[in-house]
């Protein structure tokens, strides 16, 4: 974990996600899952969060120049923010379409790049927002009701 803050409001965890290193993809989501288990959060909810953060982690590794995942756990809510350092998405509506992908051949050979990552995240979360500026960044915000 790269930082861990706890106060009256709740817990904030922040993890840096690297780029292009497929061998460690999943480590951040595993760590988040472990924390949620320790907090005795409902198993079904943990699975949804785990799936969503895993897909996010894959996306950052495959498509971005690196970024971070921030998890905020407050009383009735888990908020997850994923922000990368670009290169941004030209058309977010197109990116949200099931099956649309710009993943490399290398990524596809490993079973990534099915064009299901963003739709999976949306399906798993209670609230989903995607914002991107081409040439600059992509930011996803997800909320899960506890």
């Amino acid at each position, binding site marked *: 974990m790269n930082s861990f803050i706890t106060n009256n409001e709740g817990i904030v965890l922040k993890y840096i996600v690297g780029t292009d290193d*497929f061998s460690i*993809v*999943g480590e951040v989501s*595993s760590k988040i899952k472990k924390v949620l288990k320790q907090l005795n959060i409902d198993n079904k909810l943990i699975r949804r969060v785990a*799936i969503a953060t*895993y897909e996010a982690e894959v996306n950052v590794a495959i498509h971005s120049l690196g970024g971070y995942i921030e998890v905020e756990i407050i009383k009735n809510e888990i908020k997850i923010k994923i922000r990368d350092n670009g290169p941004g998405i030209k058309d977010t509506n197109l990116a949200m379409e099931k099956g649309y992908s710009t993943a490399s051949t290398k990524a596809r050979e490993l*079973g990534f790049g*099915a064009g*299901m990552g963003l739709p999976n995240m949306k399906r798993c979360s209670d609230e989903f927002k995607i914002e991107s500026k081409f040439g600059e960044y992509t930011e996803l915000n997800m909320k899960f009701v506890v």
Partner: protein
Amino acid sequence: MRVSNLITNYGFELITDTDSTVEINGVYSSDLLSFVMANGNSGNAWITVQAHLNILAVASLMEFSCIILPYGVQIDNEVVKKANEENINILKTELDHHDIYKIFIDEEEHESIL
């Protein structure tokens, strides 16, 4: 059915040094990791020809009972080592998807009779 049942009764090879007494709850097959994340269920046996490190993260997050490599697919020692650390069962068989599914269907029918 337990993972060990596939080893004892159907000749599957457990290539990890892990707990094969785990109960299998259904079977799922896909090589696209997003499909697996979206459609797999906890306790599933997962059939895949992908044999790289990332299958371990998926199996662990989804809490699968085991990974089954069909067609005698080869796997690196590095992956086996990591699977041992994370206690993820990896089984190998020469069978194809059809024959593996047939085992599960036969076992389910057998269990429903009992």
